[in-house]
């Protein structure tokens, strides 16, 4: 389902940005519509996804894990095997190829876990574009390997100390950069959030995940999965995974949010499970906010999920009931990190560990004739410092 002309999914979405940016959004909408109708743009994207990113990413039947859980067969969509180690690059390939068509040579991006920043810096390096990435101070500390990776790729990483020093503050700062340099700069948003057309465009670029996975499930198992699970921060890997399953009503779709220290505390990042609708970063969607409409500080052990908002299409899918949203705690995510590492020899990103934690709970309630597909959105190498700290282990 595309949004309407004004960028609304039901009552969610829209373009709540300063007037200075509106002409740039109009230009982007036109350029994207035009590119979508151009077979050579589609071919270009497909070429880089295949030869540069390494698509299609496989699905993998996690036999040992499934046996240990004792319920449904669990399949993993291996977005962690993409170039740069996460699903984020599906979107940056698309957006930066579009930016090149629009003649924009300077790219700005925000990043939380650093995966979108790395993916943007990577494609910018490959296409010879200047890249500036805004990253919260707190996130630069907990995801320091990714900061260095971006710099190795030639990007300028700008530290954001305002607010909570996390993803939302990085996004504020990226928007301030964009409004200042709007005439020559392309803002590459990493999630299905922000003003129209970003939620639609990022979803379209990420929808390759579910498109492939649906075919792969039919190939390998002969049936569609009974349940599909993905983590939701801003919501790009989940939207990409769910999109082509939406018409298949028999497939249950579950989004897993960051429950942090628990939804009953004020230390979580679960906009859909515990927030209410409001306007932030250009769109109307569920938000973690106080009674006065101030954005609340959020918390997640996973930097990529540590965001008070969520993409507007998820808000629509929550209200419509097509997707069920649950939250798991930091502790449950960590347990799943260890579980997958030991049973399958795969270190999952802490973001993806949330999806796994949700999947494990759901699979245990299903029978062994059923199947469950999880989006393993990224690899966990970037998180080993955080995990070591939680274990009380000092790394050199």
């Amino acid at each position, binding site marked *: 389902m595309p949004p309407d002309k*004004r960028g609304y999914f039901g009552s969610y979405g*829209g*373009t*709540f*940005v*300063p*007037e*200075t*940016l*509106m*002409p*740039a959004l*109009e230009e982007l909408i036109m350029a994207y519509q035009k590119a979508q109708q151009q077979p050579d743009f589609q071919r270009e994207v497909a070429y880089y996804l295949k030869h540069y990113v390494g698509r299609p990413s496989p699905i993998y039947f996690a036999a040992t894990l499934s046996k240990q859980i004792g319920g449904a067969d669990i399949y993993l969509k291996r977005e962690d095997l993409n170039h740069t180690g996460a699903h984020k690059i599906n979107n940056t390939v698309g957006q930066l190829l579009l930016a090149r068509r629009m003649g924009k040579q300077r790219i700005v991006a925000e990043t939380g876990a650093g995966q979108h920043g790395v993916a943007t810096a990577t494609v910018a390096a490959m296409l010879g574009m200047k890249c500036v990435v805004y990253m919260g101070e707190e996130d630069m500390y907990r995801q320091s390997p990714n900061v260095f990776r971006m710099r190795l790729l030639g990007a300028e990483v700008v530290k954001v100390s*305002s*607010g909570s020093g996390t993803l*939302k*503050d990085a*996004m*504020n700062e990226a*928007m*301030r950069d964009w*409004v*200042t*340099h*709007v*005439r020559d700069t392309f803002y590459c948003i990493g999630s299905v959030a922000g003003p129209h057309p970003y939620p639609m465009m990022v979803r379209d670029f990420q929808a390759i995940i579910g498109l492939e996975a649906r075919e792969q499930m039919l190939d390998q198992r002969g049936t569609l999965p009974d349940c599909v699970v993905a983590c939701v921060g801003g919501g790009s890997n989940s939207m990409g995974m769910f999109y082509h399953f939406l018409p298949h009503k028999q497939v249950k779709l579950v989004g897993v949010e960051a429950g942090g220290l628990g939804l009953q505390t004020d230390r979580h990042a679960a906009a859909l499970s515990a927030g209410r609708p*409001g*306007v*932030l*970063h*250009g769109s109307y969607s569920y*938000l973690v*906010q106080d*009674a*006065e*409409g*101030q*954005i609340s500080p959020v918390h997640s052990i996973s930097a990529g999920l540590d965001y008070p908002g969520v993409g507007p299409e998820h808000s629509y899918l929550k209200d419509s009931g097509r997707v069920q949203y649950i939250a798991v705690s930091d502790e449950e995510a960590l347990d799943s990190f260890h579980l997958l590492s030991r049973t399958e020899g795969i270190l999952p990103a802490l973001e993806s560990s949330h999806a796994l934690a949700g999947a494990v709970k759901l699979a245990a309630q299903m029978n062994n004739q059923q199947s469950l597909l999880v989006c393993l959105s990224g690899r966990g190498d970037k998180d080993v410092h955080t995990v070591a700290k939680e274990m009380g282990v000092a790394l050199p």
Partner: protein
Amino acid sequence: MTGIEHLYQTFTMLKKRQEKALITYLVAGDPDLKATARHIEVMAQAGADVIELGIPFSDPSADGPVIQRASARALSKGTHSANILQMVSEVRQRVTIPLIFMSYYNPILQYGLTQFCQDAAQAGVDGVIIPDLPVEEAGPLATVALSKGLAVIPLAAPTSTRQRLAKIAALAQGFIYCVTVTGITGTKQVVTGEINGLTRQIKEFTELPVVAGFGIATPEQAIAVAQHCDGVVVGSALVRLIEELGENSPQAVADLTRQLKEALTMEYIGAPG
């Protein structure tokens, strides 16, 4: 008299007196609401023609560092729409010039658009400026604001196309706020050439006054910009004084306001366009 009428009366009087409007900005609750009330009175006495009162927001993505810090200070003191409205209705007893709210959309949305417009009008507020509400999204607020006589003052930018300027002019009440530079508040130096072209274009679509803001800090800059419009907005320069001088800031705020107003009064620069 409604807010829209109050603004009309003010700009008509200024035109008759051959003066350009001085619009001063401050963040409500910075460093606390008592100080804000004092600053409003001081600005009015020193010659401000309109005061723009910022409602602090946790994520002021259109503002530069000065107003970001002011917003954080205000929020840390528990400032919110309800106690700002309370303060305004008290100050209204003593201050007669138009008062405008500048707020990001979410605090108003959460307060409730109808309730907000009603309470603002009742407190004596004359209009609202919402930096993250372009014409496309302004319909719901504009409808209720109009019913309470509150002016919805839209922003126009150097990037706005002619088609967009026509839409902006059609929506506007009170005046149009012209952003002098592509950017955020209080950081870039203003480029007067661009302002000239923009205000001329807007004047093709409306009789409403056009004021300019963003990056105007000194009397010299105010004079240069005012050649091309009906008034100027000075914000970050005043907020910086409040930040730096603390309890001693009212005197400095009064001095800068007076200097700016004198500059805008001294020589009538002629109608724009």
